């Protein structure tokens, strides 16, 4: 069963087309990586799917709900970790988590339970009483992702989630994303190709607003006759031949 069905999704800003007639299906419970160089249309696609930006044309159906006509219902089942760290600076780590649980409708008891679990799952105990603005970039990023997961979303959008994380923190996050497989549909954008290769069940490569290729990492390597996934990506993203 598909969690997301995208049909002819297009976004134009004046004369510029950021996303051009995107057609895509994403299977429920899988991790899908959306790759592309800067300006390829990845973030615009995520913004449209998470009901932050209205498409110029086309539609997407998330778990049976249209992003155009049922955006409120879509928002109940998704969550998002934006590209930039998005935390409330004067709230503590615990309060940030409680806030998100609260605005997704949890009552006080459920909020406390979910917050305790998120603190444990993301190893946030040592900083739970610290204000978010005093945390390092890596901790803030970890908190931001914990906030995206605390609502137990069925579809999770992670826009460059490991940007600014050190190697250990990145590996920890990879492990957390791996654990979501089968339960949560994860749509991930990243510039780290090894991350996409390691985590995703399927990869879509965008360039100039269009989906240029779709498949698993080995499929894309094989299709381009490349030695590595990086070579395949460069060839697909630039429209050139892969280096043999």
């Amino acid at each position, binding site marked *: 069963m598909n969690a997301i069905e995208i049909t002819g999704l297009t976004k134009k800003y004046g004369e510029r087309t950021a996303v051009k007639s995107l057609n895509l299906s994403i299977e429920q419970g899988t991790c899908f990586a959306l790759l592309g160089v800067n300006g390829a249309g990845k973030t615009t696609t995520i913004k449209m799917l998470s009901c932050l930006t209205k498409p110029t044309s086309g539609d997407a159906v998330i778990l049976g709900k249209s992003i155009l006509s049922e955006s409120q219902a879509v*928002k109940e089942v998704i969550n998002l970790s*934006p590209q930039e760290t*998005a935390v409330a600076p004067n709230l503590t780590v615990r309060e940030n988590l409680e*806030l998100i649980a609260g605005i997704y409708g949890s009552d006080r008891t459920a909020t406390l339970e979910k917050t305790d679990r998120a603190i444990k799952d993301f190893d946030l105990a040592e900083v739970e009483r610290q*204000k978010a603005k005093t945390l390092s970039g890596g901790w803030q990023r970890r908190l931001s992702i914990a906030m995206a997961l605390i609502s137990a979303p069925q579809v999770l959008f992670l826009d460059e989630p490991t940007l600014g994380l050190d190697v250990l923190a990145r590996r920890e996050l990879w492990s957390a994303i791996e654990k979501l497989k089968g339960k949560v549909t994860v749509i991930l954008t990243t510039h780290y190709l090894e991350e996409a290769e390691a985590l995703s069940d399927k990869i879509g490569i965008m360039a100039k607003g269009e989906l240029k290729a779709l498949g698993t990492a080995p499929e894309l390597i094989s299709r381009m006759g490349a030695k590595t996934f990086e070579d395949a990506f460069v060839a697909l993203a630039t429209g050139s031949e892969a280096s043999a």
Partner: protein
Amino acid sequence: MKLLAFVSRNRKEMLRDPLSLAFGIGFPLVLLLLLSAIQANIPVSLFKIEKLAPGIAVFGLSFISLFSGTLIAKDRTSSFLMRLFASPLSASDFILGYTLPLLPMAIMQSAICFLASFFLKLPVTGTVLLALVVLIPAAVLFIAIGLLAGSIFTDKQVGGVCGALLTNVSAWLSGTWFDLSLVGGAFKRIAYALPFAHAVDATRAALAGDYASIFPHLWWVIGYAAVIMVIAVVAFKRKMNGDSV
């Protein structure tokens, strides 16, 4: 529950910002004490505590625009609002969430101003409570200005527009620092075409127990508050449904 969680967050964010407290409560109190000291040495009828306290209370409220505008603008520029816009919070949750925590803050701020005025020989009468009620439309007006500024400006621009421009304009054109009749002419007409002098005059009338004089002035404040709130809500909703957060 959703709205309460958001209201609670906004209240904490504002109360935990030391600059909010310093400017919103500290600065008006310093001015109250300073002008009362001048009045004690060189009597100026405008600086009598019965006239000064309402002016300072309105001046203090002008900082509410700075608090709310800065919070909203920072939420926008830090992507925090993007996260919230992707959540099930509705447009009315956002507008109430940013507005509700400010009302008790504004009333508290005015109450502290009058409390300090009691120590400066303002008579302790029931009209002070009426003056607090009369200040509520002015509080809503400044909250609406903050919501509007936060929806269209960056946090730095909000600092300039609300922190410098608005506080000065609302102070100079309120009739608190000098009698508007002394300048007269176009200046006085402009001042009375804006809501700030009316807010001060309505509060002075309430404090003096001159009930008949309250409403002609208060209508101006209520009218401005309603119109600016509608514009602010439209601007915020456009931002919410627009292409950029």
